[in-house]
């Protein structure tokens, strides 16, 4: 098995682990971490394919994802802390006021 397939499958596995974490965990912070794992899995794909295609475009995407992730973490954690101040829980299932 050549390297590119190995890397792509690795990133798919990491992505799946992240997705499974989002689905089975209830702690908002852990879910957030799982999202970061998924973002990193995608980054790995970009870089692997950038190497494969001998082009820097994929790496630019990774750069942008990092910038977005930084902003997202700042805001996301701010929101989680705000929610916690309002209602002392980190369980996402307890925050369901928007249900139909």
């Amino acid at each position, binding site marked *: 098995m050549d390297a590119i397939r190995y890397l792509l499958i*690795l990133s798919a596995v*990491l992505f799946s682990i992240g997705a499974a974490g989002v689905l089975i965990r209830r702690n908002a912070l852990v879910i*957030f971490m799982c999202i970061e794992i998924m973002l990193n899995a995608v980054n790995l794909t970009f870089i692997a394919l950038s190497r494969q295609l001998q082009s820097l475009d994929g790496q630019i995407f990774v*750069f942008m994802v990092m910038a977005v992730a930084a902003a997202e973490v700042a805001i996301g*954690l701010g929101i989680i802390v705000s929610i916690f101040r309002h209602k002392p829980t980190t369980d996402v299932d307890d925050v369901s006021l928007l249900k139909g």
Partner: protein
Amino acid sequence: MTATPLETVLFIAFGAVAIAGALSVILARHAVYSALGMLVNFVALAAMYIMLSAEFLGIAQLIVYAGAIVVLFLFALMLIGGRRPAEQGRLTGGLAAAGSALVVVFLAEIAYLVMRLTGTAGAKGTVTPDVIAQLGHIQLLGATLLLEYILPFELASVLLLVGIVGAVMLARARRQSRQE
């Protein structure tokens, strides 16, 4: 893309570490262990980036992810959830079971797609690892960012600014509501 035997070994090793880190994120009972597992995952990925001739991104991964983001998570944990026991039972009913099953299907689909890929077809660029080694990764990436992708680059800075302002607003709102 060919790899030397040493590289192959290292790839497999770092990949195993990354998977182990990710698994410990979702399986750890305590959220702090999750954060540490995430740190392991990030570091392993940073090593792989460097091995893939993306040295700058590897360093940035260490600074931004393994540094700033993990620390932010730990701060948040200390603020709200540090001493609280983790939630009871990770698998909650049919939702989690269905989710796990779907994830397995998803993984199978991706694997099938990857295996079906026909070799190394596709447009070949000019940026080979040799060129990168010759000219330097930071220089190349910087030139591409500031020449070809200047607009997204600047927009990213605006995005970060918005993020800062948003975080400040969240903090302010909290303080005000407490005063009332």
